[in-house]
C-alpha cells in the first residue's frame, strides 16, 4: 500500500512536469479577422499546406486586442509560435527585429520580391540591433490606407447632392458641419464628422498623419531622422493640429470622440450618429456586405481624399500588415516552407479578398484584378486613392524608435491638451516634441 501511494504521488509529480504530447509540427498564431470568411480562408490555406506536406499545423486565432499580450509573453518565455501574424503587433515588428527576436528571412522573400509592391517590401525591412545590419524580418500579407465614408441618404436629407461635395480641403471639411446644422434643424441628433481624437485608438494618429501630409509636413525625413527642431516643421505641425481639432471645437464631431476606442467610430457611423467618418480599411462598409446590401451599394459611399490645402495631391500613409517567424521557432525550415506557400499568389489573393476587400493587396498582379479595380464602388475608390496619390509607410517603418510615439499615442494626447485643457496648439506641440525626443533618445 505504501509503495502504491508513493508510486501514485511520483506519477502525479511526473505528470505535472511532463511536456504535453507533441502532436502538431508547426505552431501558427493568427489574428482573428473582423470578417469570419477571412478566418475560413486562412484555415483553407492551412489545410492545403497540410495536405501538400503531410505535416500538421496547430493553428490558434487571437482577437485583435489580445494578440499583442500573447506575443510579448511568448517572447519573454521563449515559448514562441513558428509563424505569427497580428495587425496590432505589426507596429512592434521593428522593435522585435531590433531586439534580435525575429528570424531573418531574405532567403524566403528575395526570390519572389518581384511579386510585391515596393511599399510592401519596404515595410518588411528592419534593423537588427544585435548584428547592426538591416534585413528582411517579416513577410507582407496585405495593406490598408485610411478612407472616408459618408451616408448618401443623410447628405441628401440635408439638401445636398453627391456632386456638391467639394474637392478642395477647407470647403470639404466645412460641408459636413453644414450638413449637421441642417439635419439638426430637422430634429435629428446627429453630428457631421466622425474624427477620432483619443489616446486609446490607433485611428487618431493614422488620421492625423493624413492631415500632416496634406499640410506638407512630417515628423521624420526619408532616412527616419527626427526633424521637429526645424521651425518650419514645428509651425506646420501646429497648423495641422489646429486644423485637425477645428471640427471638434466647432461641435461638429461627437463629444465622445476624444475617448473613442478603435471600434467606436465604426459604431457611431453604423448607428448613423455621424454623417461621415474617417477610418482605416474598408471594414465599415464591409460590415454591411451580405447583411444589408442596400446600405453597402446604395447608401454608403467611399470618397477620395480632397486635395491638399495648396490644391495638389498629397501623400497617403499606408499600413502594411506583415507576419514573422520568431528566431526561437523550433521548426524554422518548416515555418519558412509554410510562409513560401502562403505567399503564393493564389493563396495570398484568396486571403486578402476574403476580407470583403477591407484590405488592399500587396501583390502587384492583384492590382490588375477587377475585384480591386472596378467591381465594387468602395474598393474602386480605395484603388484610386492608392494608385493616383503617392503613398508612404508610417513612421515606425522608417525608425523603429518611433514605436512608443505611436503606442503612447502622443498625437492623441496633444489633441486632449487642446480640446480638454484648452492649451494652445503650440504648447501642446512643444510638449509632444519634448516627449518625442525623450523617447527617441532611449
Amino acid at each position, binding site marked *: 500500500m*505504501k509503495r502504491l501511494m*508513493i508510486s501514485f504521488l511520483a506519477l502525479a509529480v511526473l505528470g505535472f512536469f511532463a511536456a504535453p504530447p507533441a502532436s502538431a509540427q508547426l505552431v501558427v498564431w493568427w489574428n482573428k479577422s473582423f470578417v469570419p470568411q477571412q478566418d475560413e480562408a486562412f484555415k483553407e490555406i492551412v489545410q492545403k499546406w497540410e495536405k501538400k506536406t503531410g505535416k500538421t499545423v496547430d493553428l490558434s486565432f487571437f482577437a485583435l486586442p489580445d494578440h499583442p499580450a500573447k506575443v510579448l509573453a511568448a517572447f519573454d518565455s521563449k515559448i514562441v509560435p513558428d509563424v505569427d501574424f497580428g495587425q496590432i503587433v505589426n507596429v512592434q515588428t521593428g522593435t522585435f527585429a531590433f531586439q534580435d527576436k525575429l528570424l531573418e528571412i531574405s532567403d524566403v522573400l528575395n526570390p519572389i520580391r518581384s511579386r510585391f509592391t515596393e511599399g510592401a517590401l519596404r515595410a518588411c525591412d528592419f534593423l537588427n540591433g544585435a548584428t547592426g545590419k538591416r534585413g528582411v524580418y517579416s513577410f507582407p500579407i496585405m495593406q490598408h490606407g485610411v478612407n472616408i465614408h459618408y451616408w448618401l441618404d443623410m447628405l441628401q436629407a440635408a439638401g445636398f447632392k453627391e456632386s456638391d461635395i467639394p474637392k478642395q480641403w477647407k470647403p470639404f471639411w466645412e460641408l459636413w458641419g453644414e450638413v449637421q446644422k441642417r439635419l439638426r434643424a430637422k430634429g435629428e441628433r446627429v*453630428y457631421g464628422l466622425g474624427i477620432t481624437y*483619443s489616446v486609446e485608438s490607433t485611428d487618431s494618429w493614422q488620421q492625423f498623419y493624413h492631415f500632416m501630409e496634406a499640410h506638407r509636413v512630417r515628423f521624420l525625413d526619408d532616412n527616419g531622422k527626427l526633424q521637429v527642431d526645424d521651425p518650419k516643421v514645428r509651425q506646420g505641425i501646429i497648423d495641422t493640429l489646429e486644423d485637425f481639432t477645428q471640427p471638434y471645437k466647432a461641435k461638429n464631431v461627437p*463629444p*465622445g470622440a*476624444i475617448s473613442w*476606442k478603435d471600434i467606436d467610430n465604426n459604431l457611431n457611423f453604423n448607428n448613423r*450618429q455621424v454623417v461621415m467618418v474617417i477610418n482605416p480599411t474598408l471594414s465599415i462598409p464591409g460590415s454591411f456586405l451580405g447583411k444589408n446590401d442596400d446600405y453597402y451599394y446604395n447608401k454608403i459611399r467611399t470618397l477620395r481624399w480632397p486635395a491638399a490645402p495648396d490644391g495638389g495631391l498629397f501623400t497617403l500613409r499606408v499600413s502594411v500588415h506583415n507576419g514573422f517567424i520568431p528566431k526561437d521557432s523550433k521548426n524554422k525550415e518548416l515555418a519558412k516552407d509554410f510562409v513560401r506557400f502562403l505567399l503564393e499568389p493564389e493563396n495570398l489573393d484568396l486571403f486578402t479578398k476574403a476580407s470583403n476587400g477591407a484590405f488592399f493587396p500587396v501583390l502587384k498582379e492583384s492590382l490588375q484584378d477587377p475585384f480591386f479595380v472596378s467591381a465594387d464602388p468602395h474598393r474602386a475608390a480605395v484603388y484610386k486613392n492608392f494608385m493616383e496619390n503617392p503613398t508612404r509607410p508610417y513612421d515606425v517603418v522608417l525608425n523603429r524608435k518611433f514605436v512608443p510615439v505611436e*503606442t503612447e499615442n502622443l498625437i492623441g494626447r496633444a489633441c486632449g491638451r487642446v480640446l480638454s485643457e484648452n492649451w494652445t496648439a503650440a504648447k501642446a506641440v512643444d510638449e509632444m516634441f519634448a516627449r518625442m525626443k525623450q523617447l527617441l533618445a532611449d
Partner: protein
Amino acid sequence: MARSIAASRISTAPGRFGSDSAWGVILVIPYIVVFVFVVVYPILYGLKLGSSAESYRKLFQDPIYLKSAWNTLVFLIVAVNLKLLIALFLSGFFYNTEAWIRWVGIIFLLPWAAPSLPSIFSIRWMFNSEWGMINGILFRLFGIDGPLWLVKPDLAFGLVIATHIWKNLPFWTLILLAGRMAIPKDHYEAANVDGATRFQAFRFITFPGIKNLYITSTLLSTIWSVGDFNSVYLLTGGGPWDATHVLSTLGIRYAFNIGDIPTGVATVITALPLVVPIVFVLIRRLGKGE
C-alpha cells in the same frame, strides 16, 4: 465495540503505512510544489523583471505616471472609505428581518455576483455621451445633450469610483451584516429598556461590536482595491487621454500596449510601499485576534 475496533485499526495505521510525520511530508509536497510554482516563482520573476533602474527612470520621466499614482491614492481613499461607510449603514438596513427586505437583499447581491465584463461594459454603454441610455433619456425628456460622462476626466474618474463601489458594496455589506448579527440581541434589549435612542444603540453597542471588523475590512479592501483593474480598464480604458489610469492599468499599458514588460512590472512595484505597510498592519491585527 465496533468503534473500539475501528479505533484500534486506525491506531495501527502508522505502523503499517509509515510514520505520521512521513505521511505529513508526502501529503504536503503537492502543496509545496504548487506554492513554489504559482506563488514564489512568479513573485521572484516579477521582482527580477522590475529590478532594472532604467525602467524606473523611464517611469518617472513619463508625465502619466504621477497622475496615475495620484489617481490610485484618491481611488483608495475615496472609494474604499465611501464603500465601507455605505456598507456599514446598509448592513443596518439588511439587519431587519421583514420579508421584503430579504428580497431586496437578493437583488442587492446581483452586482457582486454578476461577472465584471458584461456588467461594467453595460455601465459604459449606459453612460456613453452620444447614444447611451442616460443621455438618450435626457435628450427625449428635456432636449439636452446631457453630461459628457466618460469624456470629462473628473466625471469619468467619478464614475470609475462609483462603479467600484457598486460592484463591491454587496460583499462588504454582507461582511458587516455578519458582524452585526454576532452581537447578542440582549444588549439591544437592555439598551431599549434603559431608553437608549437608535443612534445611542449604534454608538455604544453596534459600532464597538463591529469596530475591529470594520477596520480589518477597510485594510483588506484597500489591499484588494490597489489591484482593481476591471473598474478602470473596462469603463474608461484609462482615458480620456490617460487621465483616469491607476497603477494597475498603467502597468498593463506599459507591458502590453507599449510592449515594455519590465516598465510595466516596475509600475506595479511602485505600489508596494503603499501595500506592504497595510499588509503588515493587517497581519499584526489578525495575529492579535482583532
